[in-house]
């Protein structure tokens, strides 16, 4: 039977395979440390944050501010890429005082990113657990997709029991098949831990005073 009218409500096309990108971001208190210590004004106050002795200053650019700006630039780049080509499914998980998935798998163009705040400890193990739960879920990260990329960004030493979750992440299940990148935000970052995270990927741990290199 010939179809005589076109019903646009019934029009579908083949959904393209998405590229899942999972950001695992350190939002511990040490991310409030400034990246430009020579340009700041000392307030004279000191304190103890996230295991470190600190001076409180004004007028600086904090690591977390830098991270926020880089994530936004990255989302912009992904959105432009999405227009012409592949859907990029972005998920963002933070680990710090606030350890949770702040952005569930969302097309880069649709991500509503609110600047992250930094405080608290560095519970990497818990963060990895959340990432693991996400990636093992085929409803959230489909099989019909490009190989997911997990990007771990950290500026310090994790202080929960993370070795087990890290080994589990890189050795077992779907997470073992993901591609991985690591970005050390500061000299205080645990490079051994980051190197372990990217073992087998053929990559180096990236250094960044800012996190722009994620893009």
């Amino acid at each position, binding site marked *: 039977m*010939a*179809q*005589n*009218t*076109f019903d646009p409500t019934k*029009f*579908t*096309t*083949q*959904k393209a*395979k998405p590229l899942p990108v999972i950001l695992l971001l350190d939002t511990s208190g040490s991310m409030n440390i400034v990246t430009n210590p020579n340009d700041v004004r000392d307030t004279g106050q000191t304190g103890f944050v996230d295991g470190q002795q600190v001076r409180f200053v004004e007028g600086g650019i904090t690591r977390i501010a830098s991270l926020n700006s880089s994530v936004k630039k990255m989302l912009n780049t992904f959105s432009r890429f999405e227009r*012409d080509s592949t859907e990029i499914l972005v998920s963002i998980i933070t680990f710090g005082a606030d350890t949770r998935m702040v952005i569930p798998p969302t097309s880069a163009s649709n991500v509503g990113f609110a600047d992250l705040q930094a405080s608290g400890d560095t519970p990497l193990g818990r963060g990895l657990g959340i990432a693991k739960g996400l990636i093992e879920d*085929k409803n959230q990260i*489909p*099989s*019909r*997709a*490009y*190989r*997911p990329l997990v990007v771990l960004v950290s500026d310090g030493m994790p202080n929960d029991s993370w070795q087990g979750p890290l080994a589990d992440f890189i050795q077992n299940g*779907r997470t073992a*098949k993901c591609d991985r990148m690591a970005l050390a935000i500061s000299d205080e970052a645990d490079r051994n831990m980051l190197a372990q995270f990217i073992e087998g990927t053929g990559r180096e741990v990236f250094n960044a005073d800012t996190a722009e290199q994620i893009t």
Partner: protein
Amino acid sequence: MPILQNRLPNVFIGEDAPCDCWLIDADNLCSESLKGGQIIYTPHLGAPELVQLKDVPRPRTDCWAFAVMAFQILALCHPFIGKKVLEADEEDNGWDSEPSEQDTSVDLDEQAYKGYLPYIDDEDDDSNEFSGGLPRQLILNSQLRTLFQETFGAGRLQPHRRPSMAFWALEFARAFDNSIRCPSCKMSYFHSPDFEKCPYCQNPQPAFVIAKTNRWQTILLGENKASFQKSLPGRLFHPFSFASGDSAEYEAEIDLRRKNVKPVRGTKPFPPDLTFEFVNDIK
């Protein structure tokens, strides 16, 4: 002629209207032999034997790429991404499965592009069907449907079965010459008893003329005008050829209100076997 390049490499589209479209292939970049040479193809357009490194570029591999491009432009979907890819079982081939021995890429999409899966409209195999895209009844006549079936059905595994470019040129010209461009929404649809109104916007079929000879016929339409001029193409009068099929053989002055067609003043008179049929009354 100013040209602009659209997103597909090797496809150049003119700015004048009606625009010329040139497909310029990269055959001369490829070597004669399989070993030590470079085989160049555009992703998702490469013929199966090319992508599987079983053959080098030839006219029949160009015919495949052309057919994939044509299908995508007309149907707004890829001819090989169907339910086998889109509704695959979880156990099947995604980024998270183990690679098999014979082909390192088990990714189902890539398998489809490489020609391992059947055509979505294959008349003999509906295992990879796809019911999306533009309805084929609206965009393909039976001759074009046959050309796609020959190319993507039998022609998938037997490259010599693929129709040559001459057939495509002929059938696209025929489809074009028997299409009505809706004056309201500008989509085109076939002149057939199935379509009394535009299938896209339901605008009534406009008034037009069919110029007919023993060998060919073509629809002549003005843009909402009752009187207009049109060239009569060479394919009405001569055996179809790439060179002369499109050339303006005669110039016609058409008056839909008076139902009258004559040669444009100063141009040559019409041949005896050329007739005109007026369809629909002008409003």
